[in-house]
């Protein structure tokens, strides 16, 4: 677990050592377009190559391994485009990769398990999927473009801000898609009767957890890094 006190220093150690200490960081690096092989690179070097502020990647890594943000994160409004790119990469991971995998596993489970509730489980998943899709669409079409405009204001290419909208609304929009996922995981591990399909269930459980974890960090990044940053810019541009 990431909380172990002998975790290698995030900023100083090699990326390869970091990823070995917590395998979830591989996916995080991928979201930043830092890909395998990692060679002997430190986080600083990899970020320089990728043109990202290492402080941003270190901050996200901290959230990923269950630590709290460092005091004085060193993240500035110049990092906004990278944050948005990161979050969008999360979106493609959900839609193109993990959701199809989960759907396939639920399909396999339904094929091997003829019990009455399986069609309901499939429907439950599809409803949940649509909700997530809608939320991501909102981020892509409303929240992110708005943040883009706030950012352009800081670089001088000033455009009038839509005063009707503020990032606060985005915060409120963050709703409980987590609740449905939590129910699905609970039903799977506690209630749905098995029919010699333990391996499919285990795979499904792992995938759902992976998704759950990534979604949680995703919203932590929005709440703790992105929204405060945009709020401070809004204050400046409206004062």
């Amino acid at each position, binding site marked *: 677990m990431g909380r172990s006190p002998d975790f290698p220093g995030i900023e100083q150690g090699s990326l390869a050592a970091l990823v070995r200490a917590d395998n979830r960081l591989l996916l995080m690096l991928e979201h930043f377009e830092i890909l395998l092989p990692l060679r002997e690179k430190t986080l600083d070097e990899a970020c320089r190559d990728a043109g990202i502020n290492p402080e941003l990647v270190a901050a996200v890594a901290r959230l990923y391994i269950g630590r709290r943000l460092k005091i004085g994160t060193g993240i500035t409004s110049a990092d906004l485009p990278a944050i948005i790119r990161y979050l969008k990469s999360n979106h493609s991971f959900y839609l193109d990769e993990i959701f199809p995998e989960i759907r396939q596993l639920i399909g396999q489970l339904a094929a091997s398990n003829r019990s*009455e*509730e399986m*069609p*309901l*489980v499939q*429907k*439950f998943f599809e*409803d949940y999927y649509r909700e997530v899709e809608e939320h991501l669409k909102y981020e892509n079409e409303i929240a992110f473009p708005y943040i883009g405009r706030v950012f352009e204001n800081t670089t001088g290419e000033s455009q009038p801000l839509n005063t009707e909208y503020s990032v606060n609304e985005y915060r409120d929009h963050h709703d409980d898609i987590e*609740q*449905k996922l*939590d*129910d*699905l995981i*609970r*039903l799977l591990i*506690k*209630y*749905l*009767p098995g029919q010699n399909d333990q391996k499919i269930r285990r795979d499904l459980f792992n995938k759902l957890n992976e998704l759950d974890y990534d979604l949680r960090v995703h919203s932590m990044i929005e709440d703790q890094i992105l929204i405060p940053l945009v709020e401070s810019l809004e204050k400046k541009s409206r004062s």
Partner: protein
Amino acid sequence: MGKTIHIAVLEPSVLIFEGLSGIAERMDLPLRMKHIGSVQELEKLLSCHNYELILLNPSYIQHNARQFHSLKKEAPDTRWIGISYAVFDNTTMAFFDEVISITDPLERVASVMRKTPEPSGPKDNENGSLLSEREKEVLQQLAVGLSNKEIADKLNISINTVITHRKNITIKTGIKTVSGLTIYAVVNKLASLDNIR
């Protein structure tokens, strides 16, 4: 595993908050602590969330006594703990269920926080047989798609009773959404696919 204890901290000092959350982290209890910056924010949160514990700086009470007393009345299961690092009058301090002082040893602070009542309901003995007969009836109706009002009419009970049963069903099963509960009902033979809308 017990249910998560939710703690709100209304305290202007970041140092105090960080200290409290450091202690909380070392208590090995599932808890979530939220730092709150204003009375308005607390009010807003209390209107939609349950907090088992609220830690707050007594100076807020001094200026909003009436408001706090009505907040307290609305959340009878919440324990209100004062964080004292200055002297306040007795009327203000009487508001609190308990008071911790910044000179208290860690153990005492931890023990005050630990005394938090477990959120009601059984902890991990969640299973279908635990639902009472009435709860099973409510769940059956929920599964076929009836609203609270319709369930109340059908079972001849008040809407409030339906809501209480629903709350208890969720506490006992751990499942929060109606569609999730429907699946639970089918698994436990309380409903069948044929009569689900």
